[in-house]
């Protein structure tokens, strides 16, 4: 795209990420975007909550000192993933042997995170749909082709199997998506189309 970027809402990176100027991204050196990722306005991505190497673990877990050496990855987002307005991505954390530490958050390809959803999962597979206002608790694992319904609260540590639909507070498995889910252009496979229209209007 020719550089008319000065005015437009989205910054487009070399790999095709479209990032809103009004998004709040912390600790960019700890974030990996797979390319063609969309981050909308007011989305918060907490790359600053990265895991401290075990040597420094005992100092102060709540205020991690900046480590200039090899930046550990806090958040990985795959291709064609879409972080909607006011969504929050936070690396999961856990108290392990008396030390509170953060773990990486991995988000796969073609993932949709709805408006003002909060994601603290340990991993999210490909083609996952997180509805608006949903909460994915710390260290939860959301497998491929699953759907978290709007307003659901996936409890910490829950595993959402593939092809399952979870909803409610706390979230339970309420159904399954059809076999065609995730086919390009159908439900679950709209990521490219979503990406394409961003910044066009």
């Amino acid at each position, binding site marked *: 795209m020719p550089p008319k970027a000065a005015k437009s809402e989205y910054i487009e990176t070399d790999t095709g990420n479209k990032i809103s100027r009004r998004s709040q991204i912390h600790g960019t050196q700890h974030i990996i975007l797979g390319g063609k990722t969309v981050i909308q306005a007011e989305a918060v991505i907490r790359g600053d909550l990265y895991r401290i190497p075990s040597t420094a673990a005992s100092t102060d877990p709540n205020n991690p000192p900046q480590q200039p050496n090899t930046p550990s990855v806090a958040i990985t987002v795959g291709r064609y993933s879409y972080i909607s307005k006011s969504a929050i991505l936070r690396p999961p954390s856990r108290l392990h042997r008396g030390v509170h530490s953060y773990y990486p958050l991995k988000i796969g390809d073609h993932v949709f995170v709805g408006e003002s959803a909060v994601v603290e999962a340990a991993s999210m597979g490909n083609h996952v749909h997180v509805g608006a206002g949903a909460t994915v608790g710390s260290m939860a694992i959301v*497998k491929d082709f699953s759907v978290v319904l709007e307003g659901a609260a996936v409890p910490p540590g829950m595993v959402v199997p593939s092809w399952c639909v979870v909803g409610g507070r706390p979230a339970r498995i309420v159904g399954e998506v059809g076999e065609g889910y995730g086919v390009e252009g159908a439900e679950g496979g709209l990521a490219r189309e979503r990406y394409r229209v961003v910044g066009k209007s």
Partner: protein
Amino acid sequence: MSRPFPYTYVSCPCADTPVPDPARKRRSRESPQKQTPERTEAAKEVDIPKPQQTDDENGQTDDEEQTFDPRSPRSNFSLYPPEQLLYCEDCHQIKCSRCITEEIVSWYCPNCLFETPSSMVKTDGNRCGRNCFNCPSCTAPLAVSTIENVTGNGAQQGPWVLSCGYCMWTTLDIGIKFDKPTNIRNQLQKMTDATAQPAFDTRSRQGSRAFGDLKSPLSTLTSVADGQAAARDGGEGQSASNEDTPENTLSNTDSRFAALKSFYRTQISETSNSPNDPMGSDFGFSSPGALNRLMSLYASSSRLSGLYGGNKKSKSKPPVMREALNASEGLRIAPEDEENAVIERLASEGGWDSVASIEQRSQQSPEVRFVDELLPLPVLLRTKRAKRCKSCKHILVKPETKPQSTRFRIRLIALSYIPLPTLRPLTLPSSSSSAPSTPSPDLNALSPLRPVHVLLTLKNHMFDPVRITLATPSVTPGRVASKVTVLCPQFDIGANSDVWDEALQGASAPITGDPRLTGLRGHEKTPEAGKVWDKGRNWTTVVLEVIPGTLPGSEADTSNIGNESGDDKAVSGSTQDQDVLEIPVFVHMEWDAEAQLEQQNVGKASKPDDLVARELAYWMVLGVGKIQASL
């Protein structure tokens, strides 16, 4: 699950034609079909192919084709989002979840994603046999954690608990700690059955038997050895059982059930006069003596030889089946003061908060009444299922057995065969003066009587080009009559060829469209009758012009009050969701498919590149939006 506008649903034909028959489809235009009485004449209209036909409506009322009514109560059961539908290659028909049968491929725990072998599923009670538990209070998964968080790197030896990260319930609330972080289910079973036995079905049977042996040899003697004697000396047995109730009441419902089951089994085997009695052996329990005798009387004709004599003998002295008499046999005498104790507890401590809710109790054993009696629930298993066509039994979907895998060995989804419909409102650049549509119409509030253009894109996933014919009723069925016109009802969609082929052929034009269209692109483009809107490699977009009707009773309704009053009695549909603008569209597709081996004509010498003309027709429903009440 309702979807946001705009949406498209595809109707599975099974609702109308229970036995799918491709030949019938072909005849369907001639064959008279039943007309639902409440349908209005206008709704009966089907705008069959030719675009100019939309205005002359009255000439076509003799068409017997039935219009699909998305509002009819039956439609709820036939409309599916396109990705949920399957396609049977043998029946050449769309298949919905009601046209298929399912077979379980594997069982797995949704929490640990381990497969449970089918032999273990029953003994584990359909639940995960590992460390997966759900919170009895809120159903969230429980995590194994230590009580004391030992700082440092020493091996954590502390006692372990299950804790809920959602509602903060822990097993400490019911006073349970675990010694090891593994094999929690066995540990829990040992704790809950005071008798240290694994308490699930078959295993527990031996367990309780062993327990009975251990505790009171007398009771096993009575239960196994001589039932009749014990029944006769009922009083004696009763007193004996009363004596041992306090100390060896089987605490657990499961173990008690198992004890009763084994007890009655032995009773049946003893009292039944025929050892190969089908009632006694085949089923877990059988009828008591009297009924048993009756049954054998009726059944005697079939096995006269051996049993008639025995039957007579038993008539003279029928074997009597006794009931369980002591605790080791599974008898539990309700404590006299149980109810009072419960009431007292309710009144004195805890009150409402201490009582388990109905949802909580529904998952627990029947005696649980208070929250401190709730036990962690092992996670229920889930299944991976293969799906078969109900009519031809061919497999349509077969997932891989491994729980973690998302692959399919066979997956015949409808989307590979029928074109994928997508709908979006047409937004014209503001410079276009002729088009009346606003830049982006709000689909949740369409103004009545103002035309809206929507783009319907059909994307072909087959490797053959298809010819599509769309047809809609010119006026949508239901109380709110919206006018619909497909501007280009007949068009072709290209084949879903290899993307690389195309990229290698002509890198200059990524979207090889009609030259007229590509010429138009960039300029003002106005919806035009008879022309497709846009066209790509394997997709075609056409424009639908929709004039939303007026809601009855709204201020814009004055124009057609005359029609409305006449129709009111005829259209007796519910007024719920009447403002939702849904357009039924009949899709007829034709293509030339390569003949499959078994379908080639046997008589003819069939060439391998033989092409067979195929066609498929179905209804789909386009959810355009909601109509506003006022202009």
